[in-house]
């Protein structure tokens, strides 16, 4: 730690950023070296320690505003800069919490193998989880577009095995489909990065922002990189890989994929447009991205309504919720200045990313427990579930409160900020989409809850037992998603300067 801190760093505490990336990689290598018997233990020890590192970074960001580090003491354009701001800190802590929850939950399915020679899936799960976590941390603190490309690729390589842990043909096919989407996405991103380097001679985010001029090479680069990242984020209409990828994945893997992995590439879209190319944004381009977001909200919700399996319903709900994230772009566009402005809309987008991560992880985990208890996850067979599995259903319902956007949840605060931004900027059409999306989300979740509250068609004696601690994990995550809104409720308390308002001010 001291060695790292002594090298040239643009701000104090930069060593934590290096630790956030290196620590999960070291744990991953230990897990590989130790094999399946060792992997679960390494993972369970590494997750809380990683959470502590994320909290230390958040603390440093709260004190200093921003943490920075030059790798090897080399400043850009030759060297690579790492930097954590409010956005990075929020995502780092969210990732650590959700990954810890997923790890705890997965101990039942992917604990140390009981018979020697077993545990191929166990090793696969923990190595993928730790790898995805390292890649996400790199994506959140990286400030070099090529460095971010490497983070994206590592994230893909870690996420693909999570889809096909059981090795059956349908999951392998889903994993291959996901991999091809992700590879096309990252090669388009790389092509854009080459064009930017060719035109402006740097890939550092800060330096690019000062030298980028609106010209054809920059437009082509921005379009290619955005299209590639949208494919990786599964934004409508490039979402086709996401529902099959979730259909056969274990619940803990689905939670990580849906809550965290898609947020990594979304975060890089934010970095690209807000930090690297803010002056390149045009009203038309931002409206187009918003239109895709609106399409995702309406199409994803409509398809979620039509699903007969709970897991696929939750997966299509992810397709819809990703749409809200991309409403940030039209809402943050300042037409008079002709550039993107960090403010209410960005704060709303960040809060949506964080609250969706908690809520969706909780939802996939409780859906997984329901499937274990019933032996299936067909919604029409859910009668009597509310009486038999009240805690799982409560976690599902609380997560749903945040997804719909009911007060005081984090989802409510996020949608409130997005609505305020829509009203402030006079773009009422996005407000209509946000409200309509909330109604549709309410509809498909209420359908599930109504089924579960009905009397069972047949006696429910065949329910399998589920350990209480496994039900506690999704419940805790769902409670976090709901309580998150208390920070974001500040707009309603006169004189209060905390929470979302402070976050919005911090961006300005």
């Amino acid at each position, binding site marked *: 730690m001291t060695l790292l801190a002594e090298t040239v760093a643009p701000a104090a505490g930069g060593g934590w950023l290096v630790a956030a990336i290196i620590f999960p990689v070291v744990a991953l290598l230990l897990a590989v070296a130790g094999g399946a018997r060792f992997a679960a233990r390494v993972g369970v020890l590494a997750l809380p320690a990683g959470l502590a590192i994320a909290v230390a970074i958040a603390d440093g960001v709260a004190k200093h505003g921003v943490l920075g580090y030059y790798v090897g003491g080399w400043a850009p354009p*030759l060297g690579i800069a790492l930097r954590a701001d409010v956005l990075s800190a929020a995502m780092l802590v969210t990732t650590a919490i959700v990954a810890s929850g997923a790890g705890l939950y997965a101990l039942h399915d992917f604990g140390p193998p009981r018979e020697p020679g077993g545990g191929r899936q166990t090793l696969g799960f923990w190595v993928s989880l730790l790898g995805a976590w390292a890649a996400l941390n790199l994506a959140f603190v990286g400030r070099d577009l*090529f460095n971010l*490309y*490497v983070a994206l*690729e590592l994230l*893909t*390589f870690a996420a*693909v095995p999570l889809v*096909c842990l*059981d*090795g*059956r*043909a*349908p*999951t*392998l*096919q*889903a*994993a*291959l*489909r996901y*991999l*091809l989407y992700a*590879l*096309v996405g990252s*090669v388009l991103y*790389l*092509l854009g990065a*080459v*064009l930017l*380097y*060719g*035109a*402006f*001679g*740097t890939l550092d985010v800060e330096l690019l922002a000062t030298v980028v001029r609106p010209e054809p090479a920059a437009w082509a680069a921005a379009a290619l990189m955005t299209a590639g990242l949208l494919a990786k984020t599964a934004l409508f209409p490039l979402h086709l890989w996401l529902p*099959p990828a979730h*259909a*056969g994945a*274990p619940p803990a893997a689905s939670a990580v994929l849906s809550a965290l992995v898609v947020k990594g590439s979304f975060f890089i879209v934010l970095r690209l447009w807000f930090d690297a190319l803010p002056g390149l944004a045009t009203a038309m381009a931002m409206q187009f991205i918003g239109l895709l977001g609106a399409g995702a909200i309406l199409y994803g919700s409509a398809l979620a309504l039509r699903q007969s*399996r709970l*897991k696929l319903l939750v997966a299509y709900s992810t397709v819809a919720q990703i749409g809200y994230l991309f409403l940030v772009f039209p809402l943050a566009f300042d037409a008079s200045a002709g550039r993107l402005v960090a403010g209410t809309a960005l704060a709303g987008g960040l809060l949506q990313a964080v609250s969706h991560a908690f809520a969706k992880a909780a939802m996939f985990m409780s859906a997984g427990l329901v*499937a*274990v208890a019933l*032996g*299936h*996850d067909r919604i029409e067979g859910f009668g009597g579930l509310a009486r038999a599995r009240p805690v799982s259903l409560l976690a599902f319902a609380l997560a749903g409160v945040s997804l719909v956007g009911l007060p005081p949840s984090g989802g409510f605060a996020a949608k409130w900020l997005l609505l305020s931004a829509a009203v402030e900027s006079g773009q009422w059409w996005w407000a209509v989409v946000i409200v309509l999306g909330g109604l549709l989300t309410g509809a498909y979740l209420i359908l599930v809850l109504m089924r579960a509250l009905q009397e069972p068609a047949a006696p429910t004696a065949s329910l*399998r037992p589920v350990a209480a601690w496994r039900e506690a994990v999704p419940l805790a995550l769902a409670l976090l998603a709901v309580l998150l809104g208390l920070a974001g409720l500040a707009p309603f308390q006169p004189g209060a300067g905390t929470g979302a308002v402070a976050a919005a001010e911090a961006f300005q």
Partner: protein
Amino acid sequence: MSPTTLFGLCGAALVGIGLYGLLTDSRLLRKIIAFNLVGSGVFLLFGVIARRGAAAELFGDPVPQALVITGIVVAFSATALAVALLLRLHEAGGGATFDTPADEAGVKRPDP
């Protein structure tokens, strides 16, 4: 036509052919090869930009050459992963395209 323009056009053509193959060919192995064509086109562009000296006005810029090595390693690993998945899919009885869906994925039932 200067060599850099010629190589630049070659890179663009490779990217175009690769993308066409990725979108139109349904055979998975062909898709993986098409992805490699796109990658080769991008790497060729890296070379062109290094030769041109980028914006730094150098005769030969070393940064893109360093980046392209990383890029090739990443593309190689991606191809290896994709081919490994394809082989496993073949062993598990899956088809060679996405049009022949493997048996409908049911929820994984816990072992009794």
